[in-house]
């Protein structure tokens, strides 16, 4: 049984979308990866801010 896939069966709407697997979920809270993403997102947001003024 793949726990991450159980929700596909809960409704027709759920069945037609995508669900994250174990790896994708783990990366969301992996502190080292998220520290890297924190820097990337901040840089992107700063570019968006600077392009907007």
């Amino acid at each position, binding site marked *: 049984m793949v726990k991450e896939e159980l*929700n*596909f069966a*809960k*409704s027709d*709407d*759920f069945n*037609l*979308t*995508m*669900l*994250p697997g174990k790896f994708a979920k783990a*990366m*969301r*809270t992996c*502190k080292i*990866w*998220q*520290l890297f*993403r*924190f820097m990337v*997102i*901040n840089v*992107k*947001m*700063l*570019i*968006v*801010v*600077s*392009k*907007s*003024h």
Partner: protein
Amino acid sequence: MAKLVIMGGGVAGHTTATFAKKWLGNGHEVVVVTPNSQWNWIPSNIWVGVGQMEKSEVTFPLAPVYEKAGIVYKQALATTIHPEGREGDDTPFIVIKSTEEGANGETEELTYDYLVNATGPKLNFDATPGLGNGQGQMGDKTVSVCTAEHAVHANEELTKVFEKAKAGERQKILVGTGHGTCTCQGAAFEYIFNIEHEAKKAGVRDMLDIKWISNEAFLGDFGMGGLHMKVGGYTVSSKIFAESLYAERDVEWIIGAHTSKVEEGKIEYELLDGTMHEEEFDFAMLIPPFSGVGFKAYAKDGADITDKLFMPNGFMIVDAKYDAGAYENWKASDWPETYQNPSFGNIFAAGIAFAPPHLISKPMTSPNGTAINPTPPRTGMPAGIIGKAVAHSVCDMIKKGDDVELHKASMAEMGAACVASAGKGVLNGTAAAMTVYPVVPDFEKYPGTGRDTKYTFGEIGLAGHWIKHILHHMFIWKAKLKPGWTLIPE
């Protein structure tokens, strides 16, 4: 000495007032008229609404901040605008009604040289029978997180639901939009996932049926016609992103819905196919639709000239192209750049107070003729950027003359960042961090998606959550005009 009067002290009004005062110095007068005594960092109301923050953490008194800045502060409600002055005196003025304790209801005429309308919206609860109390306020059947007070009340009601769930009573939670023309889906989106997170923490998730209801034609529309982002080598629609998030958290959805009536524990709604349905709930947070605050404007001779300043929905007419016609004809250039009223050059609108030329999302109507489509979002980052541009323009007009070139801040050339948290803990929360550039898609410049996909992205994780925390503290620091406040971008 010139006098700039700003109606409203939210993100747009506060930004306009504080920058204008900084740039104008003591040689000119800046006045803020707002009925509220407190400034509210509205994005964090979500955390107040789930009991993770106190009201005092998202609000602070305005008076000391304005006193420090040298801004005249009037705690009052502006009611009428007289842009031509009166017979025998051309000085324009507004009429304000005090909301201050002790002087409640006293009226005053306030003259101005330049006027900025940054009132934000009227929360139009009464547009949906049962959503309001019939007197312009929120009713007693649902809750809201639009103000800090509403959020405190929402948390009290949510706590009761959690207690019932703990006692073994299954509970139905409904979150979303309370009318077919609502905006601010993002706030409801963030709230529903915070409820889901807190329910897991409290060990009652299995006892809750959590459902989303929205006027969006598809999940992830967000009032912007959706967006496209790059994920895993693909460029995908926000529909996939949003549906995945809901499915993962076991949150069902009803979309393309106009909530037509609210009763005790039940709503009636109409879908885009024209069918009518009902949905029961034990707890419902439904965002009301927005309208303008309902100003009246009068000419020198007392004639009603409200239609020169405002659209029928109460939002202020600015330099937008209001006759763009059908959806197929819409262009990015329809959107306003300077926010100056075409009839009166010394009047501007900032933030949600300006009338958009049309929707951003594709217009949708049910076979019964009911409009079911989100109205354009213009809160948060766009409100701040527009407020600053308007402050720039007014300061230049005061210093260099009225024929100076005005500063521009079109939402078709402006991005926005949105961080929707799920939880508040530093290490166990996650957030959907999204940026969109530009807010209004420009299909001539970016054929295909209408947006620059290098800077339009979304991802879920702790990083976005940390950013949400940082934004909370940074913007309250900025609004309090603490050292370095001008370095913090809007």
